């Protein structure tokens, strides 16, 4: 399987997870999120993917936007914050992510049968 094809399959859910994680610490706007994600090669994504995804997270009520004026003449920024619902979802994702990593680790170590899950 091609690296790009496999990554795009794996990344589908991880991108949402990453965005929720990034917005926990502080309010983030789209350009910041893209820059933060692109710091990691495996997470790097395009704007054409990120912005509609943000809209979906907003519609699902996981993040809430706030418009803020910055410098005059520059269009206002749309900052995103995690909502209560977003926090609950993130907790779930953190838990499942842990399970996922431990499952893969166990398989790699050849202990398939000994899982407690």
């Amino acid at each position: 399987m091609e690296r790009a094809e496999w990554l795009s399959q794996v990344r589908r859910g991880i991108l949402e997870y990453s965005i929720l994680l990034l917005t926990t610490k502080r309010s983030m706007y789209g350009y910041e999120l893209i820059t933060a994600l692109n710091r990691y090669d495996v997470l790097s994504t395009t704007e054409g993917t990120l912005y509609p995804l943000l809209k979906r997270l907003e519609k699902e009520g996981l993040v809430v936007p706030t418009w803020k004026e910055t410098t005059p003449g520059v269009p206002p920024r749309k900052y995103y914050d995690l909502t209560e619902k977003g926090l609950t979802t993130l907790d779930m994702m953190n838990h499942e992510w842990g399970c996922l990593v431990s499952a893969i680790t166990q398989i790699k170590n050849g202990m398939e049968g000994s899982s407690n899950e």
Partner: protein
Amino acid sequence: MSEMEKYLQSVSAGLNKLPENERNEILAEIRNHIHEAINRQEPINVVIDRLGHPLRLAQSYANIYNIESGNKDFNIWRDMTFFFSAGLASYVVVPTLFLMAVVLPLTSIFMVGYTLLDLFIDLPGDNLNVEMWYGLTLTGFPAIIVTLVFGVIFFIFGILCWKLLKKYLAFISLRYKKFRIDD
């Protein structure tokens, strides 16, 4: 018109089905993004390239709204219309097709089988008489031919009914699945 305005206008055109305030909000965010990028010395063509084809970007947004277009009253009417019409149609179509699919081939087999057997051994009952229209009655060889022809026609028709039934059921199932997922 600047490259940015051209791009935004294309996105806007792709979002024409969205409510105006939603569309303006999306455009404002993209407008800000392009400004942020340009302020950091990124070339406009690279920025626009990364946003992707304007209609594709618009489509990605539109997909979200299609999923979200959950106007409950409308869905209730749509569901009711679907179940009522599909249910009513199925009530007639399904038993009719099934009955035809079973009865026609059986009749055909009986007709043809009896006629062919009768050629070799004298089966009980009268000699073969086929009542045609306008009071015309066929006997003997023409009667056998007519019986065989109609037997084959019945058989083919029965198979067609069976296929049609399968198609109808597949069609209804697909329709059902389709709008279940849409919700």
